[in-house]
């Protein structure tokens, strides 16, 4: 018997899988099929997530250096995101609310601050902070 919850999970997996295939085949830097970051498009500033799609595209091609140059934060966070999502999926399948990631309130706040600081730093026109902007490391 297929439950609605499981149908949702299947749809999510399908969407995620499609996303991965599209990101492997098309380069977000060149093809216009991926939308630009709305923050960068509207303000010209880099948000903490700018370059994420290009970073994942590079990772899917095994190019860690390029990925780190696009968005180092995303590359660092991806294993944690994967782990957290896996926990969520297991909790759904077992129909029991999972404990999720066991992080203290302080570590979550530190993580949040880290993301904000990363977002600010990559917009500063000052070396070495400007090296965090998408692509900057490639021009070294």
């Amino acid at each position, binding site marked *: 018997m297929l439950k609605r919850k499981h149908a949702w999970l299947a749809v999510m997996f399908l969407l995620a899988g499609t996303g991965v295939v599209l990101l492997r085949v098309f380069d977000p830097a060149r093809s216009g099929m991926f939308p630009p970051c709305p923050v960068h498009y509207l303000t010209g500033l880099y948000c903490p997530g700018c370059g994420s799609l290009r970073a994942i595209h590079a990772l899917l091609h095994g190019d860690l250096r390029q990925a780190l140059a696009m968005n180092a934060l995303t590359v660092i*966070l991806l294993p944690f995101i994967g782990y957290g999502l896996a926990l969520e999926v297991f909790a759904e399948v077992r129909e029991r*609310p999972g404990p999720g990631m066991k992080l203290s309130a302080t570590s979550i706040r530190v993580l949040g601050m880290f993301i904000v600081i990363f977002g600010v730093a990559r917009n500063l026109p000052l070396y070495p902070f400007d090296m965090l902007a998408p692509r900057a490391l490639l021009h070294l």
Partner: protein
Amino acid sequence: MFCPQCGASNADTAAICVQCGRQLQAVVPAAPNQTPGIVLPAGAVTQNYLVFAILATVLCCLPAGIPAIVYAAQVNGKLQAGDLAGARAASENAKMWCWISFGIGLGGVVLWGLLAVIGVVGSLHH
């Protein structure tokens, strides 16, 4: 839901288990967050949506992910302090900001798609 006695899969609304006949609906109201006075391991009760908050921040490209992370921290902080009601309220807020972020992100994608279609149509016209 799964029968607590034999583990057979049942419809969520089933009154008794299709396999062993155990009464099921009496079990449902005993779900963790509706039972007062029972202390559950922190985190088993309240979802903090941290993963989705982080995803919203780095993939939806949106500042709306930041409040979601702040509320996720509040959920865990309040659970640690034993404030279940507060944790639940923070959890609702975390969820709301995740959805806001996801909604704006999705809206952006749809808008981009529309603009692309209009652009393509426009360039065909010329």
